[in-house]
């Protein structure tokens, strides 16, 4: 199917003699990709690194806040408006500010990746930690379990099936965040490649950048999914 679509695309461009700088043929894109694979992988690696670090920071913080939310109604109602405000602000609007704060180096990209991957986790982790059955809580209480025991033996494992779908979403989003960060100002990373090739009207190169960014997102998503299958083994799909 995939091959079929590419062949059709190839044929249409070839038959109509459509200008290459608008839509290049897949074969040209792939040979460019093969020729430049080393620098492309290097730049993709940079982006992926920013995404992974941003993802790790954001999800750690998000999970920690979710734990606070579950144990204190006051903290939840106090902080929730900020969380929502952060979510509804487009990352592209915040990116220049992040560059101002964290510089043009990878710091601002990590921050951008973190901002976008924060929200799915905090929502799902809060939901997962809270949605423990009443009778399960009664069971633990009947055994005089401590809040810590309830957390470790009940809430935490119970939240994992809720948490992982959010982690998968935020894995893909963190790559988007890193690239947006690179668009605002960078001298390396896949976003930089895409931006520079736009200035030079190097559409073929731009396509290779797009492909690599998609690959980075899928790779990260796939890794999180593999971990999910291992960790949440009891969840039947």
């Amino acid at each position: 199917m995939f091959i079929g679509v590419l062949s059709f695309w190839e044929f249409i461009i070839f038959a109509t003699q459509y200008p290459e700088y608008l839509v290049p043929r897949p074969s040209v894109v792939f040979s460019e990709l093969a020729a430049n694979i080393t620098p492309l992988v290097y730049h993709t690696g940079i982006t992926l690194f920013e995404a992974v670090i941003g993802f790790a920071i954001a999800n750690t913080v998000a999970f920690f806040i979710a734990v606070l939310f579950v144990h204190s109604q006051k903290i939840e109602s106090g902080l929730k408006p900020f969380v929502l405000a952060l979510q509804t602000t487009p990352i592209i609007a915040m990116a220049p500010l992040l560059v101002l704060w964290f510089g043009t180096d990878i710091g601002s990209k990590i921050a951008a990746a973190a901002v976008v991957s924060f929200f799915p986790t905090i929502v799902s982790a809060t939901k997962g930690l809270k949605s423990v059955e009443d009778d399960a809580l009664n069971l633990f209480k009947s055994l005089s379990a401590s809040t810590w025991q309830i957390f470790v033996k009940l809430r935490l494992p119970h939240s994992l099936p809720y948490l992982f779908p959010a982690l998968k979403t935020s894995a893909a989003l963190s790559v988007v965040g890193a690239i947006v960060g690179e668009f605002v100002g960078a001298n390396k990373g896949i976003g930089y490649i895409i931006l520079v090739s736009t200035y030079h009207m190097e559409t073929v190169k731009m396509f290779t950048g797009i492909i690599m960014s998609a690959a980075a997102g899928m790779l990260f998503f796939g890794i999180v999914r593999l971990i999910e299958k291992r960790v949440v083994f009891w969840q039947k799909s």
Partner: protein
Amino acid sequence: MNTAVSLDHVGKQFADLHVLQDITFDVKEGEFVSIIGPSGCGKTTLLKIIGGLSDFSTGAITVKNKTAKMAQQQREFGFVFQSPVLLPWRDVMANTMLSLELVGDHENTETANDLLKLVGLEKFKNFYPSELSGGMQQRVSIARALSLEPSILLMDEPFGSLDEISRDRLNSELLRIWKEEKSAISSIIFVTHSVPESVFMSDKIVVLSPRPGKVRQVIEVNLARPRTTDMKYSEEYLRLVKWIREILKEC
């Protein structure tokens, strides 16, 4: 026989809403007492109050000369809930071990093994809850409830979600386990909405009427023990079933 649990004009209210009112009855050592009533009559709330998991507004509860809360903290109660509340990430063995773990008795696999044998699940130790039938899951939850050797078992419609065949089987199983030497259970308080089940299992049936939950009648069941399925055709059994049904009709 000594009194294990004694309720003296126990009432509970939320603001102006009376959930339970003037609940008075005793549960003796070695007695099987059912609480029956239409839904919304506060059966589950009453069980939680007895078990020290919920507060009450008026009256007094004594459990072996202690308050309900103290009895709960001293692990006098074993709980079996409506749903088995097994942890899906733990296998049968680990689920049975949960209570022991929570009190710091991590190595006591012997007790867990014995109890799984008692409920007939020794071959399923390494199975996960999702691989078990509803009846088997409830057996695991009974084993877990017995692991800290409570003297009073509190059961909240434990077989309510099972099909009739499994329910009949587990009823007989429960009566057998109760009388088994290995179980330290003396009294059982059993919430149900099935009239035949309550008659078959109990020595005493407390019939509640709803809104507010009040004791409508306390009925002694004079069927011999051990109970057998044949008794379900006896005159006394049928008379009690009919009588309780009539009381419930007026509730």
